[in-house]
């Protein structure tokens, strides 16, 4: 299936205030791949993600999702294919109850009431939040909000999941639960994060961005073992690859 393909070619973007955020990015993500996008603050991670489902339109270059290249006409189809989980779940959970929020996407897509019910409950059960369905979002914990935000995207059954900092603001236990949950998904995943350990656990491939350009693109382990490359990208080896702090100091 070419459905789950993400292809970005010579992508450039400049913000209205003349900040050049992306300067010629090219990569291709295949069906079922899990890719981590890492880089320093301001390297262009979020800007890149915003292009993957048409929140921003490229100044130059092209974005192709599956069989469609991103244009105004294909936007609806692309947004159905690409599910975006935002950094701040409060931005995504805008309806009065969890159920309403998860049902928001399917309702807009025009499903029948029975199917909406089924989709919402299936999505909530997948993330283990079925018991929260009547709760208002402001009463949820950070981890619960994140789970519901993911469910709200899953309910639209996207082929590709795009996530911006999925582990930010989570406690270690909630973070571990999230990683385990994401491991069970067969979607193509694109995850932008500073949490390199999460990338190590979830993504077999990593793209390092620097100043709006691709600094490196390859197998996660190879990239995280290259100390010089990491330093260049303002990164550091993931903690799990740094060895024991007690033994090292001896």
């Amino acid at each position, binding site marked *: 299936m070419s459905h789950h393909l993400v292809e970005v070619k010579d992508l450039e973007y400049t913000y209205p205030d003349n900040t050049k955020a992306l300067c010629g990015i090219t990569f291709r993500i295949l069906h079922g791949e899990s890719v981590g996008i890492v880089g320093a603050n301001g390297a262009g991670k979020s800007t890149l993600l915003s292009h993957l489902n048409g929140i921003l339109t490229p100044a130059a270059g092209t974005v192709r999702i599956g069989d469609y290249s991103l244009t105004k006409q294909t936007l609806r189809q692309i947004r159905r294919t690409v599910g975006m989980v935002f950094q701040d779940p409060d931005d995504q959970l805008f309806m009065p109850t969890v159920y309403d929020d998860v049902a*928001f996407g399917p309702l807009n897509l025009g499903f029948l009431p029975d199917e909406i019910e089924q989709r919402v409950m299936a999505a909530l059960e997948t993330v283990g939040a079925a018991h929260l369905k009547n709760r208002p979002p402001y009463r949820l914990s950070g981890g619960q909000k994140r789970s519901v935000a993911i469910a709200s995207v899953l309910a639209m059954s996207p082929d590709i999941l795009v996530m911006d900092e999925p582990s930010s603001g989570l406690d270690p236990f909630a973070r571990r639960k999230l990683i385990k949950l994401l491991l069970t998904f067969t979607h193509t995943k694109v995850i932008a994060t500073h949490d390199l350990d999460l990338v190590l656990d979830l993504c077999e491939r990593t793209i390092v961005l620097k100043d709006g350009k691709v600094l490196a693109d390859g197998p996660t382990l190879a990239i995280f073992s290259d100390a010089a490359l990491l330093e260049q990208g303002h990164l550091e080896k993931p903690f799990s690859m740094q060895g024991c702090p007690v033994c090292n100091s001896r």
Partner: protein
Amino acid sequence: MIKIEAQLVNLRHLDELATGNTVIHRLNPCAKLLTTMVFIIVVTSFPKQMLAGLIPLCIFPVALVSLGDLPVSPLVRRVVLTLPFIVFIGIFNPLLDHSVAFQIGDVVISNGWISFFSILTRSILAVSAALLLVATTGMEGICAALYQIKVPKVLVIQLLFMYRYLYILLEEVGRTIQAYNLRSFEDTGIGYKAVGSLVGQLLMRTLDRAQRIYVAMRCRGFDGNIRLNRQTRVQYQDVAFAFGWSAFFIFVRMVNIPQWLGSLLTEGYR
């Protein structure tokens, strides 16, 4: 900061009462909304010299509180909060209008005082009816009902979102004030020089958030319509509730029951 947080808890308390499961809670939101609207219209339509005629209307809030199993003190506290405004509206009436309404012994009751108490009573009735609507229906129920009775969707969406994000905005205000206080060292509140930039900051942040929320909505197929997935069937008791109460309110408006009862009694003694 502590004050603001306490207010946050207060803010939601009423809405949480709406999760109850009593006869009143189970009624169709539309029925409750329409009944409350009729109630408020009838209450406000009373002429200002009429005080006794209003009394039978007190049955409505009392019935809702007892049937809806609602705690009285939080409701009373919120009604009391609005009192200063009401008092200011009516306080000049006794000073301006000295015409005698009636006399009990040496005490003269002027029409000014009658109209003052009439304003007071009407306002308290209207405010408590609105609060009871929120406490038995919840904001989302009210919004769904407004949607059903064809209130423009722009207004309903505004209301829905304002209610959802009020909490987050207040939290942000709280954080900003705390950050200010931690570095101002004077316990005199926010200086007038800083107010402008603080409010400006909040506005910018609010606009940013609005942009992000809009994007999140667009990503999930938002096309200008909020679809609330609720099949609210109108049942026999909903119709009975709405029509029964509305008929009662209009009857009370037409017939001054206390006066009629009074004349019945005095007739009896003759």
